[in-house]
Protein backbone atom coordinates (compact mmCIF):
# COMPACT_ATOMS: atom_id res chain seq x y z
CA UNK A 1 0.00 0.00 0.00
CA UNK A 2 2.69 2.45 1.05
CA UNK A 3 5.87 2.05 -0.88
CA UNK A 4 9.22 3.72 -0.34
CA UNK A 5 11.59 3.39 -3.30
CA UNK A 6 15.26 4.30 -3.04
CA UNK A 7 14.49 7.45 -1.20
CA UNK A 8 17.24 9.91 -0.47
CA UNK A 9 16.77 13.05 1.53
CA UNK A 10 19.45 15.61 2.10
CA UNK A 11 19.45 19.18 3.44
CA UNK A 12 22.70 20.35 1.94
CA UNK A 13 25.26 17.73 1.06
CA UNK A 14 24.82 15.50 4.08
CA UNK A 15 22.16 12.91 3.44
CA UNK A 16 19.78 12.33 6.31
CA UNK A 17 18.40 9.29 4.51
CA UNK A 18 20.02 7.39 1.69
CA UNK A 19 18.73 4.59 -0.50
CA UNK A 20 15.83 3.72 1.78
CA UNK A 21 13.35 1.22 0.38
CA UNK A 22 10.60 -0.80 1.97
CA UNK A 23 6.92 -1.59 1.58
CA UNK A 24 4.02 -1.35 3.99
CA UNK A 25 1.23 -3.83 3.32
CA UNK A 26 -2.33 -2.82 3.94
CA UNK A 27 -3.46 -3.61 7.48
CA UNK A 28 -0.02 -4.24 8.96
CA UNK A 29 1.86 -2.41 11.65
CA UNK A 30 5.39 -1.62 10.57
CA UNK A 31 7.95 -0.36 13.02
CA UNK A 32 10.81 1.95 12.04
CA UNK A 33 13.59 1.49 14.55
CA UNK A 34 16.82 3.23 15.07
CA UNK A 35 18.83 5.37 17.44
CA UNK A 36 18.22 9.10 17.82
CA UNK A 37 19.35 10.97 14.76
CA UNK A 38 19.04 7.96 12.49
CA UNK A 39 16.45 9.70 10.32
CA UNK A 40 13.25 8.10 11.62
CA UNK A 41 11.35 11.35 12.00
CA UNK A 42 12.46 12.50 8.57
CA UNK A 43 11.23 9.24 7.13
CA UNK A 44 7.83 9.68 8.70
CA UNK A 45 7.61 13.22 7.37
CA UNK A 46 8.41 11.91 3.93
CA UNK A 47 5.70 9.29 4.25
CA UNK A 48 3.21 11.98 5.33
CA UNK A 49 4.10 14.16 2.36
CA UNK A 50 5.22 17.03 4.58
CA UNK A 51 8.61 17.02 2.84
CA UNK A 52 9.63 15.62 -0.52
CA UNK A 53 12.58 13.34 -1.19
CA UNK A 54 15.71 14.63 -2.94
CA UNK A 55 15.53 11.50 -5.05
CA UNK A 56 13.40 8.37 -5.09
CA UNK A 57 9.66 8.10 -4.53
CA UNK A 58 7.13 7.61 -1.82
CA UNK A 59 3.88 6.22 -3.18
CA UNK A 60 0.49 5.45 -1.74
CA UNK A 61 -1.39 2.84 -3.75
CA UNK A 62 1.09 3.41 -6.56
CA UNK A 63 0.45 7.14 -6.70
CA UNK A 64 3.22 9.47 -5.58
CA UNK A 65 2.39 11.05 -2.27
CA UNK A 66 3.50 14.39 -3.63
CA UNK A 67 0.82 14.18 -6.31
CA UNK A 68 -2.05 14.05 -3.85
CA UNK A 69 -3.92 17.21 -2.96
CA UNK A 70 -3.35 18.39 0.60
CA UNK A 71 -6.80 17.60 1.87
CA UNK A 72 -7.03 14.37 -0.08
CA UNK A 73 -3.77 13.15 1.38
CA UNK A 74 -4.97 14.06 4.85
CA UNK A 75 -8.00 11.86 4.29
CA UNK A 76 -5.72 8.93 3.49
CA UNK A 77 -2.87 9.46 5.94
CA UNK A 78 -3.03 10.80 9.50
CA UNK A 79 -0.04 11.70 11.65
CA UNK A 80 0.38 11.40 15.40
CA UNK A 81 3.33 13.64 16.26
CA UNK A 82 5.68 13.05 19.11
CA UNK A 83 4.43 16.00 21.10
CA UNK A 84 1.44 18.25 20.84
CA UNK A 85 1.33 21.58 22.54
CA UNK A 86 -1.92 23.48 22.54
CA UNK A 87 -1.30 27.23 22.61
CA UNK A 88 -4.88 27.92 23.53
CA UNK A 89 -7.28 26.20 25.93
CA UNK A 90 -8.98 23.80 23.59
CA UNK A 91 -11.08 21.01 25.05
CA UNK A 92 -10.41 17.39 24.16
CA UNK A 93 -13.50 17.21 21.99
CA UNK A 94 -12.46 20.36 20.11
CA UNK A 95 -9.03 18.90 19.42
CA UNK A 96 -10.49 15.65 18.16
CA UNK A 97 -13.03 17.46 15.98
CA UNK A 98 -10.15 19.25 14.27
CA UNK A 99 -9.36 15.91 12.74
CA UNK A 100 -12.47 16.29 10.57
CA UNK A 101 -10.94 19.27 8.75
CA UNK A 102 -9.91 17.41 5.58
CA UNK A 103 -13.46 16.13 5.16
CA UNK A 104 -15.18 19.51 5.33
CA UNK A 105 -15.53 22.29 2.81
CA UNK A 106 -13.93 25.68 3.45
CA UNK A 107 -16.92 27.16 5.27
CA UNK A 108 -18.64 23.94 6.23
CA UNK A 109 -19.41 23.40 9.90
CA UNK A 110 -19.11 20.04 11.63
CA UNK A 111 -22.38 18.14 11.57
CA UNK A 112 -23.91 15.25 13.45
CA UNK A 113 -21.92 12.62 11.56
CA UNK A 114 -18.66 14.41 12.29
CA UNK A 115 -19.58 14.54 15.94
CA UNK A 116 -20.39 10.85 15.90
CA UNK A 117 -17.03 10.00 14.31
CA UNK A 118 -15.27 12.11 16.92
CA UNK A 119 -17.05 10.38 19.79
CA UNK A 120 -16.26 7.08 18.21
CA UNK A 121 -12.60 7.98 18.14
CA UNK A 122 -12.73 8.97 21.80
CA UNK A 123 -14.32 5.63 22.63
CA UNK A 124 -11.70 3.72 20.68
CA UNK A 125 -8.95 5.36 22.72
CA UNK A 126 -10.77 5.21 26.04
CA UNK A 127 -10.98 8.99 26.37
CA UNK A 128 -14.73 9.60 26.34
CA UNK A 129 -14.67 10.76 29.96
CA UNK A 130 -12.13 13.45 29.05
CA UNK A 131 -14.22 15.03 26.31
CA UNK A 132 -14.86 18.34 28.07
CA UNK A 133 -11.51 18.60 29.83
CA UNK A 134 -8.94 21.12 28.69
CA UNK A 135 -6.24 19.37 26.69
CA UNK A 136 -3.49 21.22 28.50
CA UNK A 137 -4.55 19.80 31.86
CA UNK A 138 -4.20 16.14 30.85
CA UNK A 139 -1.43 13.74 31.80
CA UNK A 140 1.10 12.62 29.23
CA UNK A 141 -0.63 9.34 28.53
CA UNK A 142 -4.05 10.96 28.29
CA UNK A 143 -2.70 13.55 25.88
CA UNK A 144 -1.22 10.92 23.60
CA UNK A 145 -4.47 9.00 23.55
CA UNK A 146 -6.37 12.15 22.66
CA UNK A 147 -3.95 12.94 19.86
CA UNK A 148 -4.40 9.41 18.56
CA UNK A 149 -8.16 9.95 18.75
CA UNK A 150 -7.77 13.16 16.75
CA UNK A 151 -5.82 11.24 14.13
CA UNK A 152 -8.52 8.56 14.11
CA UNK A 153 -11.18 11.18 13.53
CA UNK A 154 -9.49 11.82 10.19
CA UNK A 155 -10.89 8.43 9.13
CA UNK A 156 -7.71 7.69 7.27
CA UNK A 157 -6.42 4.34 6.03
CA UNK A 158 -2.95 4.93 7.33
CA UNK A 159 -1.72 6.12 10.69
CA UNK A 160 1.85 7.37 11.12
CA UNK A 161 3.07 7.64 14.70
CA UNK A 162 6.31 9.39 15.61
CA UNK A 163 7.75 7.99 18.84
CA UNK A 164 4.33 7.64 20.45
CA UNK A 165 5.72 6.53 23.80
CA UNK A 166 8.90 8.59 23.95
CA UNK A 167 7.97 10.72 26.93
CA UNK A 168 5.64 8.27 28.66
CA UNK A 169 6.31 5.98 31.57
CA UNK A 170 5.89 2.24 31.43
CA UNK A 171 2.22 2.14 32.36
CA UNK A 172 1.26 4.53 29.60
CA UNK A 173 3.46 2.72 27.16
CA UNK A 174 1.50 -0.48 27.68
CA UNK A 175 -1.74 1.51 27.40
CA UNK A 176 -0.77 3.00 24.05
CA UNK A 177 0.46 -0.36 22.78
CA UNK A 178 -2.86 -1.89 23.72
CA UNK A 179 -4.86 0.89 22.03
CA UNK A 180 -2.87 0.64 18.83
CA UNK A 181 -3.08 -3.11 18.76
CA UNK A 182 -6.81 -2.99 19.23
CA UNK A 183 -7.27 -0.38 16.50
CA UNK A 184 -5.31 -2.47 14.08
CA UNK A 185 -7.36 -5.56 14.86
CA UNK A 186 -10.79 -3.90 14.91
CA UNK A 187 -10.42 -1.41 12.09
CA UNK A 188 -7.58 -2.83 10.05
CA UNK A 189 -5.76 0.50 10.19
CA UNK A 190 -2.36 0.36 8.54
CA UNK A 191 0.27 1.84 10.83
CA UNK A 192 3.87 2.93 10.65
CA UNK A 193 5.35 3.52 14.06
CA UNK A 194 8.77 5.01 14.65
CA UNK A 195 10.42 4.27 17.94
CA UNK A 196 13.71 3.81 19.65
CA UNK A 197 12.03 1.55 22.20
CA UNK A 198 12.68 -2.00 20.97
CA UNK A 199 10.24 -3.73 23.26
CA UNK A 200 7.41 -1.44 22.47
CA UNK A 201 8.02 -1.97 18.77
CA UNK A 202 8.27 -5.70 19.26
CA UNK A 203 4.97 -5.74 21.09
CA UNK A 204 2.86 -4.36 18.29
CA UNK A 205 4.80 -4.38 15.02
CA UNK A 206 4.50 -7.28 12.59
CA UNK A 207 7.40 -6.02 10.55
CA UNK A 208 10.39 -3.85 11.30
CA UNK A 209 12.66 -1.57 9.32
CA UNK A 210 15.97 -0.91 11.04
CA UNK A 211 17.65 2.37 10.18
CA UNK A 212 21.10 3.48 11.19
CA UNK A 213 22.62 6.72 10.01
CA UNK A 214 20.04 7.12 7.30
CA UNK A 215 20.43 3.64 5.79
CA UNK A 216 18.31 0.55 6.12
CA UNK A 217 20.34 -2.20 7.70
CA UNK A 218 17.57 -4.77 7.90
CA UNK A 219 13.89 -5.24 7.25
CA UNK A 220 11.33 -7.98 7.54
CA UNK A 221 9.11 -9.78 10.04
CA UNK A 222 9.83 -8.76 13.60
CA UNK A 223 11.03 -12.09 14.88
CA UNK A 224 13.45 -12.43 11.96
CA UNK A 225 14.83 -8.94 12.18
CA UNK A 226 15.17 -8.50 15.91
CA UNK A 227 18.38 -10.44 16.45
CA UNK A 228 21.46 -9.94 18.59
CA UNK A 229 23.56 -8.94 15.60
CA UNK A 230 21.05 -6.40 14.43
CA UNK A 231 20.64 -4.89 17.86
CA UNK A 232 24.40 -4.60 18.16
CA UNK A 233 24.63 -3.04 14.70
CA UNK A 234 21.91 -0.57 15.55
CA UNK A 235 22.77 0.43 19.11
CA UNK A 236 26.26 -0.88 19.86
CA UNK A 237 24.63 -2.88 22.60
CA UNK A 238 24.86 -6.55 23.45
CA UNK A 239 21.37 -7.81 24.22
CA UNK A 240 19.53 -10.99 25.02
CA UNK A 241 16.58 -11.67 22.73
CA UNK A 242 13.89 -13.97 24.04
CA UNK A 243 10.30 -14.70 23.28
CA UNK A 244 8.19 -13.91 26.31
CA UNK A 245 5.15 -16.15 26.49
CA UNK A 246 3.23 -13.97 28.88
CA UNK A 247 3.78 -10.83 26.81
CA UNK A 248 3.24 -12.76 23.62
CA UNK A 249 6.12 -11.22 21.74
CA UNK A 250 9.86 -11.05 21.38
CA UNK A 251 11.61 -9.05 24.07
CA UNK A 252 15.01 -7.41 24.14
CA UNK A 253 17.06 -7.13 27.28
CA UNK A 254 20.14 -4.96 26.99
CA UNK A 255 23.08 -6.51 28.80
CA UNK A 256 26.24 -4.62 28.06
CA UNK A 257 27.88 -2.04 25.83
CA UNK A 258 29.42 -3.49 22.77
CA UNK A 259 31.30 -0.58 21.32
Amino acid at each position, binding site marked *: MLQVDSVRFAYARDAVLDDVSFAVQRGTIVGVLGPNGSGKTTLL*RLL*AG*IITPSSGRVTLDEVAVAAFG*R*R*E*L*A*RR*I*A*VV*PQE*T*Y*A*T*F*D*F*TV*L*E*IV*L*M*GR*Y*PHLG*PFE*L*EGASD*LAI*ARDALAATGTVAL*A*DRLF*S*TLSGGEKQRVVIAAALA*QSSDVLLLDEPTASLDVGYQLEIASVLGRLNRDRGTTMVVSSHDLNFAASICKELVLIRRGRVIARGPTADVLTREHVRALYDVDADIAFNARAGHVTVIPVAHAG
Partner: protein
Amino acid sequence: MPGDIRGRMTVTLGGFGALLLAVMLVAPLAGTARISLARAFDRSQPFADNVDAQIFFIARLPRVVGAALVGGSLAAAGVVFQALLRNPLAAPETLGVSIGASVGAVLAITLLPDVAIGGISAVPLASFAGSLGALAVVYALATARSRGMSSTVLLLGGVVLTSFLGAMITLIQYLADFSQTFRTVRWLMGSLDVGSYSAIGAALVPLAIAAIGYATLPRALDLLSLGPEAAAARGVDVARAERVALVSASLSTGAAVSLSGPIGFVGIVVPHLVRLIVGAEHRLVLPASALFGAAFLIACDLVARTAFAPLELPVGIVTAMIGGPFFLWLLLRRPR
Protein backbone atom coordinates in the same frame (compact mmCIF):
# COMPACT_ATOMS: atom_id res chain seq x y z
CA MET B 1 -24.08 21.95 23.44
CA PRO B 2 -20.35 21.18 23.18
CA GLY B 3 -19.79 20.17 19.60
CA ASP B 4 -22.83 22.06 18.34
CA ILE B 5 -20.79 24.70 16.61
CA ARG B 6 -23.64 26.23 14.68
CA GLY B 7 -25.68 26.83 17.81
CA ARG B 8 -22.72 28.26 19.68
CA MET B 9 -21.86 30.60 16.84
CA THR B 10 -25.39 31.91 16.73
CA VAL B 11 -25.55 32.54 20.45
CA THR B 12 -22.07 34.05 20.67
CA LEU B 13 -22.31 36.37 17.72
CA GLY B 14 -25.88 37.29 18.59
CA GLY B 15 -24.89 38.13 22.14
CA PHE B 16 -21.81 40.17 21.31
CA GLY B 17 -23.58 41.83 18.41
CA ALA B 18 -26.39 42.92 20.69
CA LEU B 19 -23.83 44.30 23.16
CA LEU B 20 -22.15 46.33 20.45
CA LEU B 21 -25.46 47.65 19.21
CA ALA B 22 -26.45 48.73 22.70
CA VAL B 23 -23.15 50.48 23.28
CA MET B 24 -23.32 52.24 19.92
CA LEU B 25 -26.79 53.52 20.72
CA VAL B 26 -25.89 54.80 24.16
CA ALA B 27 -22.45 56.27 23.53
CA PRO B 28 -23.39 59.20 21.31
CA LEU B 29 -25.84 60.32 23.94
CA ALA B 30 -23.19 60.86 26.56
CA GLY B 31 -20.55 63.50 26.65
CA THR B 32 -19.39 66.68 28.28
CA ALA B 33 -22.23 68.74 26.83
CA ARG B 34 -25.77 67.74 27.65
CA ILE B 35 -27.84 67.30 24.56
CA SER B 36 -31.37 66.18 23.96
CA LEU B 37 -31.95 63.35 21.53
CA ALA B 38 -35.31 64.78 20.64
CA ARG B 39 -33.79 68.10 19.70
CA ALA B 40 -30.97 66.42 17.83
CA PHE B 41 -33.41 64.61 15.59
CA ASP B 42 -35.82 67.50 15.31
CA ARG B 43 -36.18 67.93 11.56
CA SER B 44 -38.10 71.15 11.83
CA GLN B 45 -34.96 73.01 12.78
CA PRO B 46 -32.43 73.45 9.98
CA PHE B 47 -29.28 71.44 10.62
CA ALA B 48 -27.13 74.53 10.40
CA ASP B 49 -28.79 75.99 13.48
CA ASN B 50 -29.29 72.81 15.47
CA VAL B 51 -26.51 72.63 18.05
CA ASP B 52 -27.72 69.35 19.54
CA ALA B 53 -27.84 67.76 16.10
CA GLN B 54 -24.38 69.03 15.26
CA ILE B 55 -22.92 67.75 18.50
CA PHE B 56 -24.55 64.39 17.90
CA PHE B 57 -23.73 63.97 14.22
CA ILE B 58 -20.51 65.92 13.82
CA ALA B 59 -18.76 65.67 17.15
CA ARG B 60 -19.91 62.37 18.62
CA LEU B 61 -21.11 59.98 15.99
CA PRO B 62 -17.88 59.87 13.95
CA ARG B 63 -16.09 59.28 17.20
CA VAL B 64 -18.27 56.31 18.08
CA VAL B 65 -18.01 54.87 14.58
CA GLY B 66 -14.25 55.44 14.59
CA ALA B 67 -13.91 53.78 18.00
CA ALA B 68 -15.89 50.79 16.79
CA LEU B 69 -13.70 50.36 13.71
CA VAL B 70 -10.44 50.85 15.55
CA GLY B 71 -11.41 48.66 18.50
CA GLY B 72 -12.76 45.89 16.30
CA SER B 73 -9.73 45.92 13.99
CA LEU B 74 -7.18 45.87 16.75
CA ALA B 75 -8.96 43.10 18.62
CA ALA B 76 -9.29 40.95 15.50
CA ALA B 77 -5.67 41.57 14.58
CA GLY B 78 -4.67 40.55 18.10
CA VAL B 79 -6.49 37.25 17.79
CA VAL B 80 -4.84 36.47 14.47
CA PHE B 81 -1.33 37.45 15.56
CA GLN B 82 -1.66 35.32 18.68
CA ALA B 83 -2.58 32.30 16.58
CA LEU B 84 0.00 32.99 13.88
CA LEU B 85 2.83 33.38 16.38
CA ARG B 86 1.47 30.63 18.62
CA ASN B 87 1.91 33.01 21.50
CA PRO B 88 -0.92 34.27 23.71
CA LEU B 89 1.15 37.36 24.57
CA ALA B 90 1.34 38.57 20.99
CA ALA B 91 -0.40 41.82 20.10
CA PRO B 92 -0.90 43.98 17.00
CA GLU B 93 2.19 45.92 18.09
CA THR B 94 4.41 42.85 18.23
CA LEU B 95 5.59 42.63 14.65
CA GLY B 96 6.29 46.32 14.12
CA VAL B 97 3.38 47.23 11.86
CA SER B 98 2.02 49.65 14.44
CA ILE B 99 5.32 51.45 14.87
CA GLY B 100 5.70 51.58 11.08
CA ALA B 101 2.44 53.48 11.02
CA SER B 102 3.76 55.79 13.73
CA VAL B 103 6.90 56.57 11.74
CA GLY B 104 4.79 57.46 8.70
CA ALA B 105 2.66 59.80 10.78
CA VAL B 106 5.61 61.46 12.50
CA LEU B 107 7.32 62.04 9.15
CA ALA B 108 4.16 63.56 7.70
CA ILE B 109 3.63 65.83 10.68
CA THR B 110 7.20 67.05 10.45
CA LEU B 111 7.68 67.30 6.68
CA LEU B 112 4.21 67.69 5.19
CA PRO B 113 2.28 69.59 7.79
CA ASP B 114 -0.15 71.33 5.50
CA VAL B 115 -0.68 68.72 2.85
CA ALA B 116 -4.08 67.17 2.35
CA ILE B 117 -5.13 64.76 -0.39
CA GLY B 118 -8.77 64.49 -1.36
CA GLY B 119 -9.93 66.07 1.86
CA ILE B 120 -7.85 63.74 4.03
CA SER B 121 -4.79 65.04 5.80
CA ALA B 122 -1.48 63.55 4.68
CA VAL B 123 -0.89 62.23 8.17
CA PRO B 124 -3.21 59.18 8.15
CA LEU B 125 -2.25 58.43 4.56
CA ALA B 126 1.46 58.53 5.34
CA SER B 127 0.79 56.54 8.46
CA PHE B 128 -0.87 53.78 6.50
CA ALA B 129 1.98 53.84 3.99
CA GLY B 130 4.37 53.42 6.90
CA SER B 131 2.47 50.38 8.11
CA LEU B 132 2.63 48.86 4.64
CA GLY B 133 6.38 49.45 4.61
CA ALA B 134 6.77 47.63 7.91
CA LEU B 135 4.55 44.82 6.63
CA ALA B 136 6.75 44.49 3.55
CA VAL B 137 9.82 44.06 5.73
CA VAL B 138 8.12 41.53 7.99
CA TYR B 139 6.68 39.65 5.03
CA ALA B 140 10.07 39.44 3.34
CA LEU B 141 11.63 38.15 6.55
CA ALA B 142 8.87 35.65 7.07
CA THR B 143 8.87 34.22 3.57
CA ALA B 144 12.64 34.18 3.10
CA ARG B 145 12.72 30.61 4.28
CA SER B 146 11.02 28.26 1.88
CA ARG B 147 9.77 26.07 4.65
CA GLY B 148 7.05 28.26 6.11
CA MET B 149 7.14 31.12 8.57
CA SER B 150 9.15 30.67 11.69
CA SER B 151 7.44 32.37 14.56
CA THR B 152 10.83 32.98 16.13
CA VAL B 153 12.03 34.87 13.06
CA LEU B 154 8.85 36.92 13.04
CA LEU B 155 9.11 37.80 16.70
CA LEU B 156 12.77 38.73 16.45
CA GLY B 157 12.06 40.77 13.34
CA GLY B 158 9.37 42.60 15.28
CA VAL B 159 11.75 43.38 18.11
CA VAL B 160 14.36 44.74 15.72
CA LEU B 161 11.86 46.82 13.76
CA THR B 162 10.36 48.22 16.94
CA SER B 163 13.68 49.33 18.36
CA PHE B 164 15.01 50.64 15.05
CA LEU B 165 11.88 52.53 14.10
CA GLY B 166 11.46 53.75 17.65
CA ALA B 167 14.90 55.29 17.45
CA MET B 168 13.97 56.88 14.12
CA ILE B 169 10.92 58.49 15.69
CA THR B 170 13.05 59.88 18.48
CA LEU B 171 15.52 61.23 15.93
CA ILE B 172 12.82 62.91 13.87
CA GLN B 173 11.34 64.46 16.98
CA TYR B 174 14.75 65.72 18.01
CA LEU B 175 15.40 67.38 14.68
CA ALA B 176 11.95 68.87 14.33
CA ASP B 177 10.93 72.20 15.72
CA PHE B 178 9.04 72.55 18.93
CA SER B 179 5.49 72.68 17.64
CA GLN B 180 6.06 69.75 15.29
CA THR B 181 7.51 67.67 18.08
CA PHE B 182 4.57 68.61 20.23
CA ARG B 183 2.13 67.50 17.57
CA THR B 184 3.92 64.18 17.14
CA VAL B 185 3.80 63.57 20.87
CA ARG B 186 0.09 64.28 20.77
CA TRP B 187 -0.43 61.94 17.83
CA LEU B 188 1.48 59.15 19.56
CA MET B 189 -0.90 59.33 22.51
CA GLY B 190 -3.74 58.24 20.26
CA SER B 191 -7.06 60.01 19.83
CA LEU B 192 -10.45 58.96 18.61
CA ASP B 193 -11.55 62.50 17.79
CA VAL B 194 -11.62 61.48 14.16
CA GLY B 195 -13.55 64.53 13.07
CA SER B 196 -14.86 63.66 9.68
CA TYR B 197 -16.20 60.62 7.93
CA SER B 198 -13.72 60.88 5.07
CA ALA B 199 -10.83 59.45 7.08
CA ILE B 200 -13.14 56.69 8.30
CA GLY B 201 -14.18 56.01 4.72
CA ALA B 202 -10.58 55.75 3.61
CA ALA B 203 -9.81 53.33 6.42
CA LEU B 204 -12.70 51.09 5.35
CA VAL B 205 -10.83 50.05 2.21
CA PRO B 206 -7.97 48.14 3.86
CA LEU B 207 -10.36 46.98 6.58
CA ALA B 208 -12.66 45.42 4.03
CA ILE B 209 -9.74 43.59 2.44
CA ALA B 210 -8.65 42.40 5.86
CA ALA B 211 -12.17 41.23 6.64
CA ILE B 212 -12.22 39.09 3.52
CA GLY B 213 -8.98 37.50 4.63
CA TYR B 214 -10.31 36.98 8.14
CA ALA B 215 -13.37 35.19 6.82
CA THR B 216 -11.22 32.36 5.46
CA LEU B 217 -9.01 31.94 8.51
CA PRO B 218 -10.72 30.74 11.68
CA ARG B 219 -10.54 26.97 11.25
CA ALA B 220 -7.04 27.18 9.82
CA LEU B 221 -5.99 29.23 12.86
CA ASP B 222 -7.28 26.49 15.18
CA LEU B 223 -5.13 23.94 13.42
CA LEU B 224 -2.15 26.24 13.01
CA SER B 225 -2.10 26.88 16.73
CA LEU B 226 -1.18 23.23 17.27
CA GLY B 227 1.88 23.61 15.08
CA PRO B 228 2.42 24.11 11.36
CA GLU B 229 3.33 20.49 10.66
CA ALA B 230 0.33 19.19 12.56
CA ALA B 231 -1.82 21.58 10.55
CA ALA B 232 -0.24 20.53 7.26
CA ALA B 233 -0.80 16.89 8.10
CA ARG B 234 -4.50 17.66 8.44
CA GLY B 235 -4.72 19.27 5.04
CA VAL B 236 -4.22 22.96 5.88
CA ASP B 237 -2.43 24.98 3.21
CA VAL B 238 -0.07 26.34 5.83
CA ALA B 239 1.87 28.76 3.64
CA ARG B 240 -1.29 30.35 2.28
CA ALA B 241 -2.97 30.53 5.68
CA GLU B 242 0.09 32.12 7.29
CA ARG B 243 0.40 34.73 4.55
CA VAL B 244 -3.29 35.60 4.63
CA ALA B 245 -3.13 35.85 8.41
CA LEU B 246 -0.06 38.10 8.37
CA VAL B 247 -1.38 40.41 5.66
CA SER B 248 -4.94 40.68 7.01
CA ALA B 249 -3.89 41.34 10.57
CA SER B 250 -1.29 43.87 9.42
CA LEU B 251 -3.73 45.70 7.14
CA SER B 252 -6.23 45.97 9.93
CA THR B 253 -3.62 47.17 12.40
CA GLY B 254 -2.25 49.70 9.91
CA ALA B 255 -5.70 51.06 9.11
CA ALA B 256 -6.60 51.37 12.78
CA VAL B 257 -3.37 53.09 13.82
CA SER B 258 -3.54 55.50 10.87
CA LEU B 259 -7.01 56.52 11.93
CA SER B 260 -6.48 57.04 15.61
CA GLY B 261 -2.80 56.78 16.43
CA PRO B 262 -1.50 53.87 18.50
CA ILE B 263 -3.91 52.67 21.17
CA GLY B 264 -2.57 49.87 23.28
CA PHE B 265 -4.01 46.93 25.19
CA VAL B 266 -7.12 46.48 23.09
CA GLY B 267 -5.40 43.98 20.82
CA ILE B 268 -4.09 41.87 23.65
CA VAL B 269 -6.74 42.12 26.35
CA VAL B 270 -9.90 41.67 24.30
CA PRO B 271 -8.95 38.28 22.76
CA HIS B 272 -8.14 36.90 26.19
CA LEU B 273 -11.36 38.21 27.73
CA VAL B 274 -13.35 36.74 24.87
CA ARG B 275 -11.64 33.37 25.16
CA LEU B 276 -12.55 33.26 28.83
CA ILE B 277 -16.18 33.57 27.79
CA VAL B 278 -16.46 31.55 24.59
CA GLY B 279 -13.57 29.08 24.62
CA ALA B 280 -10.70 28.74 22.21
CA GLU B 281 -12.28 28.02 18.85
CA HIS B 282 -11.42 30.78 16.41
CA ARG B 283 -14.74 30.59 14.61
CA LEU B 284 -16.13 32.05 17.81
CA VAL B 285 -13.16 34.01 19.11
CA LEU B 286 -12.35 35.97 15.96
CA PRO B 287 -15.75 37.51 15.22
CA ALA B 288 -16.62 37.84 18.91
CA SER B 289 -13.36 39.70 19.56
CA ALA B 290 -14.05 42.09 16.72
CA LEU B 291 -17.49 42.85 18.13
CA PHE B 292 -16.34 43.07 21.71
CA GLY B 293 -13.26 45.09 20.81
CA ALA B 294 -15.50 47.65 19.13
CA ALA B 295 -17.78 47.87 22.16
CA PHE B 296 -14.83 47.96 24.54
CA LEU B 297 -13.12 50.86 22.83
CA ILE B 298 -16.35 52.84 22.52
CA ALA B 299 -16.83 52.40 26.26
CA CYS B 300 -13.24 53.38 27.05
CA ASP B 301 -13.58 56.47 24.88
CA LEU B 302 -16.75 57.37 26.70
CA VAL B 303 -14.87 57.27 29.98
CA ALA B 304 -11.96 59.18 28.47
CA ARG B 305 -14.12 62.03 27.33
CA THR B 306 -16.37 62.37 30.36
CA ALA B 307 -14.33 61.41 33.42
CA PHE B 308 -12.45 64.70 33.73
CA ALA B 309 -14.68 67.05 31.80
CA PRO B 310 -14.07 69.48 30.21
CA LEU B 311 -10.61 67.99 29.73
CA GLU B 312 -10.31 64.77 27.77
CA LEU B 313 -7.95 61.95 28.59
CA PRO B 314 -6.20 60.27 25.70
CA VAL B 315 -8.13 57.04 25.30
CA GLY B 316 -4.91 54.99 25.43
CA ILE B 317 -4.64 55.87 29.11
CA VAL B 318 -8.04 54.40 29.84
CA THR B 319 -7.32 51.21 27.90
CA ALA B 320 -4.00 50.90 29.70
CA MET B 321 -5.53 51.43 33.13
CA ILE B 322 -8.09 48.73 32.46
CA GLY B 323 -5.85 46.50 30.42
CA GLY B 324 -2.79 46.53 32.62
CA PRO B 325 -4.31 45.20 35.83
CA PHE B 326 -6.46 42.76 33.89
CA PHE B 327 -3.39 41.42 32.18
CA LEU B 328 -1.57 41.01 35.46
CA TRP B 329 -4.53 39.09 36.81
CA LEU B 330 -4.52 36.88 33.72
CA LEU B 331 -0.86 36.05 34.14
CA LEU B 332 -1.19 35.29 37.81
CA ARG B 333 -4.19 33.04 37.49
CA ARG B 334 -2.76 30.73 34.85
CA PRO B 335 -1.96 27.40 36.52
CA ARG B 336 1.12 26.82 34.41
